[in-house]
């Protein structure tokens, strides 16, 4: 590999995210915060929790993808984040299988 190909290789990996993108994400996050607070005052039964968590997941995705640059990152980093989320899902789901399947009279 010559010096020149190394130069272009590392330049193409380095993506500077512009402030307008950050501003757009910032305002989206504020709007979603207002939405989640407003919706919590409406009686939707069990869907209150579902929608609140869905909006929280959406906000977290915006932060991870754009503030933390994963949208612009290599496949290695995207896979790392996905692996982390998968492990977290394992933690929750396997723990819950234990609690739900034992007849402790609570579920």
């Amino acid at each position, binding site marked *: 590999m010559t*010096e020149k190909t*190394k130069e272009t*290789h*590392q330049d193409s*990996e*380095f993506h*500077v*995210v*512009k*402030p307008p993108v*950050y*501003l757009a*994400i*910032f305002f989206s*996050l*504020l709007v979603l*915060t*207002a939405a*989640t*607070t407003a919706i*919590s*005052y*409406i*009686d939707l039964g069990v869907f*209150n*929790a579902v929608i*609140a*968590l869905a*909006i*929280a997941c959406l*906000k*977290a995705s915006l*932060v*991870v993808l754009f*503030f*933390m640059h994963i949208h612009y*990152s*290599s496949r*290695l*980093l995207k896979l*790392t*984040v996905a*692996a*982390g*989320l998968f*492990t*977290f899902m394992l*933690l*929750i789901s396997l*723990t*819950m299988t234990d*609690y739900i399947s034992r007849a402790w009279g*609570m*579920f």
Partner: protein
Amino acid sequence: MDSQSIATTPQELDGVDLPHPHEHPAYMRHHFEDIGQQREAANFGMWVFLLTEIMFFGGLFCAYLIFRNWYHPAFVAGSNMMSITLGTTNTAVLIASSFTMAMAVYSAEMRRKGQLVLFLVLTILLGFVFLAIKGVEWTTEYQEQHAPGINFSIQDFVHPKNPKAIPLAPDMAEKTQLFFFMYFVMTGMHALHMIIGIGILFFLVARASKGAFTEGHVMPIENFGLYWHFVDIIWIFLFPLLYLISRYR
């Protein structure tokens, strides 16, 4: 000469200024092929640490999930005691601090020292505002006798002051102590992470004002940005789970 080159230079060549056989920025470590790989490796390492933090908070979230399912009325009563104004304000403050942190990373990449220091200082200020509001909330909970293990009283739940609130039976009212326990532990852990983050920010401001991060070496700012955004994400999940349970009552 950095510590690496001092340690790896043989004694007879000590003090001799040898020409470097290959071109690379001063902050690139020799076990990396090029600077792009070093950035990637640093980012990857930071992400793996953040994933361990997700698992750490994940345990707390799992406990919360189970207790909320078992003692739902107690959790509703406890959550309705939280100040929604302070909670929403805190969320907005933390999201703003994430924005200023992202702008700090941008300033470092654009090599603007003054702007970088400004945005880091703004992030510190917003962090302190968040902690101040948290302190107010915790003091209020303590004064209202909702601090588990210290002065917890179930009177507010058996005989609620709010006429629209549903009074709880004493055994379910005792379970509100669990809600407040989860509240203090989860927000306390989160606040601890923020305090550590603010401490590191002071250190970064000191180095940034000397120009350490505006000559291409953006990595520390970038990686600290990842940590700060992660702390924001934790709060994004904590807020609806702790403050917004069945608010329509």
